[in-house]
């Protein structure tokens, strides 16, 4: 080896050993190698993994103006794929984005693994606690409450969307206060449905499918599918059984269009007006607007039967494998800021998780022409203020699939509600 080669060789060797060490360090949760942050002025690419349109795109542009060295790439995948891919990418310690959105049904699955996410406290985001709805803040913490793993984007306060034109055809009131007065309880909602069915409106059923209604009813109860100790209590919780019975009553009275939520025929159903009501967490309004483009002014929003509850909503988290945790945390701080949550609400309909906004006149007076100028700011503010938080368990999503399958079997006429319930309980027991 000549001196020259040696001179070159040593740094090369060191570099490759370091690279190897970094690569191997991955298995153990790899937290040392990723700490290094970028130097000022260096171009940084941040990837943001989402499961739908969060309405962030205009915000990225705004952010780039003040942070010219940041490039933001958004990866959008389908809801289920997004979450199961995230689990795989965390487990294999490769491929996750710098920021990942996690829906509330999955949040406990991920906060149960604090070692795989960046504690946002390191980057000063614990200062945001005062901004948030307390329960929304708590959902983003690690189990012991010591680490801040996710910051909330939106909450899904409940309302009921309905088609005014179809209600008119069925001889039901159209005005939103009168519609709300039809159904203070779910039993009365079903009774209204029977009236609607009695009027035989061609091509339209009262509701899309019982699945999301079931979810809403369970979310309205003080305790849902899990107790505070993370035990599944589907069998022993009377509120779950009651929600099950009411959902099946919708099916048995022939009130559902049998269109599973988020499937292509369900989308077609929006366009064709196949159902007159749909459970409407705030984020659903954006969805309806997108799917039922021709139905502007036909939809309206009334209060939900059975009191307030939360359905859906998300958090943003930074996986530990991110190479730029500091910049990612800063971007999260920006995307979830008070002003930006208000902006996103006005565009996309996803409702802020920051209570200071609820009495803000710009939110209170916000209306949407698509929904017949319904005061959606006021409706969802009221819904969000009245929310009672519910504890969600780590396998929330699997339990919901098991119950959803049961509702589906009744809907497809394969089983009686009792047979389906027995099978649901069997399935739930198998969830490890």
């Amino acid at each position: 080896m000549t001196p020259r080669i040696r001179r070159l060789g040593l740094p090369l060797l060191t570099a490759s050993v370091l690279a190897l060490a970094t690569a191997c360090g991955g298995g153990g949760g790899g937290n040392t190698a990723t700490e290094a942050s970028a130097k000022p002025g260096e171009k940084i690419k941040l990837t943001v993994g989402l499961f739908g349109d969060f309405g962030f795109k205009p915000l990225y542009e705004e952010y780039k103006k003040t942070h010219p060295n940041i490039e933001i790439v958004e990866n959008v995948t389908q809801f289920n794929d997004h979450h199961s891919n995230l689990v795989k990418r965390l487990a294999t310690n490769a491929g996750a984005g710098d920021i990942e959105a996690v829906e509330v049904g999955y949040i406990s699955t991920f906060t149960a693994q604090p070692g795989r996410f960046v504690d946002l406290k390191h980057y000063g985001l614990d200062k945001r606690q005062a901004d948030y709805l307390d329960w929304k803040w708590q959902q983003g913490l690690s189990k012991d409450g010591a680490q801040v793993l996710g910051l909330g984007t939106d909450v899904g306060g409940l309302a009921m969307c309905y088609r005014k034109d179809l209600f008119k055809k069925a001889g039901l009131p159209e005005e939103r206060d009168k519609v709300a007065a039809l159904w203070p309880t779910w039993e009365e909602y079903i009774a209204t449905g029977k009236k609607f069915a009695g009027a035989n409106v061609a091509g339209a059923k009262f509701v899309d499918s019982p699945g999301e209604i079931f979810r809403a009813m369970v979310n309205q109860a003080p305790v849902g599918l899990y107790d505070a100790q993370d035990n599944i209590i589907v069998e022993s919780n009377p509120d779950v059984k009651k929600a099950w019975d009411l959902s099946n009553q919708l099916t048995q009275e022939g009130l559902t269009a049998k269109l599973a939520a988020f499937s292509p025929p369900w989308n077609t159903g929006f366009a064709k007006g196949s159902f007159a009501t749909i459970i409407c967490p705030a984020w659903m309004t954006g969805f309806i607007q997108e799917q039922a483009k021709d139905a502007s002014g036909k939809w309206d929003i009334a209060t939900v039967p059975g009191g307030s509850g939360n359905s859906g909503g998300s958090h943003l988290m930074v996986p530990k494998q991110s190479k730029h945790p500091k910049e990612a945390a800063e971007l999260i701080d920006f995307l979830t800021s008070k002003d930006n949550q208000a902006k996103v609400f006005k565009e996309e309909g996803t409702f802020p998780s920051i209570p200071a906004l609820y009495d803000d006149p710009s939110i209170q007076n916000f209306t949407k022409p698509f929904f017949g100028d319904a005061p959606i700011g006021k409706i969802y503010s009221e819904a969000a203020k009245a929310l009672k938080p519910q504890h969600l368990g780590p396998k929330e999503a699997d339990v919901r699939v098991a119950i959803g399958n049961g509702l589906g079997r009744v809907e497809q006429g394969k089983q009686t509600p009792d047979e389906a319930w027995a099978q649901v309980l069997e399935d739930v027991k198998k969830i490890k």
Partner: protein
Amino acid sequence: MSTLPLAVTRRRRRSVRHTLDVRVSPYAYVAPFFLLFCAFGLFPLVYTAWVSLHEWTLLSETQEFVGAANYSTLLADDYFWNATFNTLSIGVLSTVPQLALAIWLAHLLNRRLRFQTLFRVALLLPNVTSVVAVVVIFSQLFGRDFGMINWILSWFGAGTIDWAAGTASSHIALSVMIMWRWTGYNALIFLAAMQAVPRELYEAATLDGAGNFTQLRKITMPMIRPTIIFVVIVSTIGAMQIIAEPMLFGQSSGGGGGIATGGPDRQFQTLALFVYEQGFANSTFDFGYASAASWLMFVAVVVVAGINFLITRKVKGGLV
């Protein structure tokens, strides 16, 4: 005199090289395949067997050895047997008509035709279409409320069929999608084999007064028997591994159910989809259980392919 030993060594060296070349290099030539096969075929097979003997989930840090526990749970799991039944049912419904149709199509094309190449290319088109596109479009055709097939059936007074809801109807819908993709491909393989059958046999048969169908049955089929055996085995293996069609059908048919349950009643969940559900769709990510299911599926594929081999071999070969 000193050159002689040198020349001898050189010659000996050359002959050693020559033997090495003759003996070893063939192995070197085939090595890439076997190395790749070991990395992507054999190793996963063995490793899956190893994983299947453990309580092994993607997220847990430790893996406990549990012996055959996964297998015994699996054999008592109704959903596993349901998936096995669905796989066999969809397999038979798709493979049998598909192969009959493929032979018939090949027979039609095995003559002088105008635009021969055009027809042959057309046969292969469905096969090069993305499976996602095929399933999404067929799911619309088989739609309950606004599907074209129900619309056509309504001309004949048939009621609305909820294709995805029923066990038999969903199996038929899936079989149609599979047949759409693979019939033309198999027809081309049959056609290639048919072109190797000597023309004189047909001429002689025509002189003897044998009709078109008799010629197909008595000449073509026996002559292309090895190809038939090959196609039957390959189609069987393919049919046992169906996953994309039922998974996408479940998501795009509007019948509900989890992403990998194949309908709320698991009415069209196949074995491969069951494996995917256990290993990747559940938030448990139960690799141990999914691996055990994969191994039983592997055994099932070998058994069914073996049975089909024996049956097709029994079909009379040669000319009688």
